[in-house]
């Protein structure tokens, strides 16, 4: 139960960060991506601040004997740069540029109840499920460990 509550609190903090930073606004994200137009560097500041705090947090996390609410931390363990990484990142970039949504802000913006946002999130979930299926077909499941995604999350 404490794991669920701590995850809820983390989700709330993450969502607050997205809203306060302005990353819930597709037009602001696209303003960052529009380097030849009226460039808005805000997203670079968001990433720099997030990276600084995350780096410190990860240093502390690695010093813990174990996380507070689970027996063992799961750190991503892959280091290879393979074709799915490159192709997937390029696909993601096309969709991100087209709409101005990456997964976090799209989900946070469900709070608007706007049909266009709901449509985007449903399409995104279908895309994820499609890739889940494709990879399950290609690689048989190994053991009982929760499957950790390649680099993160």
């Amino acid at each position: 139960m404490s794991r669920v509550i701590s995850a809820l609190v983390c989700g709330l903090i993450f969502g607050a960060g997205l809203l306060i930073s302005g990353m819930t606004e597709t037009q602001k994200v696209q303003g960052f991506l529009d380097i030849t137009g009226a460039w808005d560097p805000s997203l670079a500041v968001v990433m720099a601040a997030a990276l600084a705090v995350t780096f410190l947090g990860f240093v502390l996390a690695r010093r813990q004997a174990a996380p507070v609410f689970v027996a063992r931390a799961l750190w991503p363990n892959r280091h290879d740069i393979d074709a799915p990484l490159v192709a997937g990142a390029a696909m993601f970039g096309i969709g991100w540029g087209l709409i101005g949504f990456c997964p976090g802000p799209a989900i946070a913006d469900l709070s608007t109840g706007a049909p266009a946002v709901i449509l985007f999130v449903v399409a995104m979930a279908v895309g994820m499920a499609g890739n889940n299926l494709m990879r399950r077909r290609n690689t048989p499941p190994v053991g009982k460990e929760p499957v950790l995604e390649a680099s993160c999350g």
Partner: protein
Amino acid sequence: MASFTPISAAIGGALIGLSVALLMMLNGRQAGISGILGNFMVFQRGEWRWEIAFLVGLVGAPLLLHLAGFGLPHPVMPASWGAIIIGGLLVGFGTRWSGGCTSGHGVCGIARFSARSIAATAIFMVTAMIVVYLVRHVWGGAL
């Protein structure tokens, strides 16, 4: 430099970092949003409950802040539903295939100096910049 907002960007970014750091220190998990949603959809025992709780928090945060006087998000979406569907499919499929998104690769991964994440972030940033350039400055406008 139309609407550079460095202070709110720094505060918001620090909160995102705090969330990522806390999820690792408390629950031992990486706060990559595409990973959380994508893994939630396969209902792994012992995992899906915290995953849905995190996602509920993500949606709930703007609503709670709205009660405290903040404006709700007001994303500008393309008029074309076809474009929205294609964009959503690309973001969903692509982030799962590459194993992370802006949070998973861009924040968690780069903070660990992961070569995979640095490569992925460079690729999706440059690709997105090219797409925005084409849409705004070559095709001249909104979708």
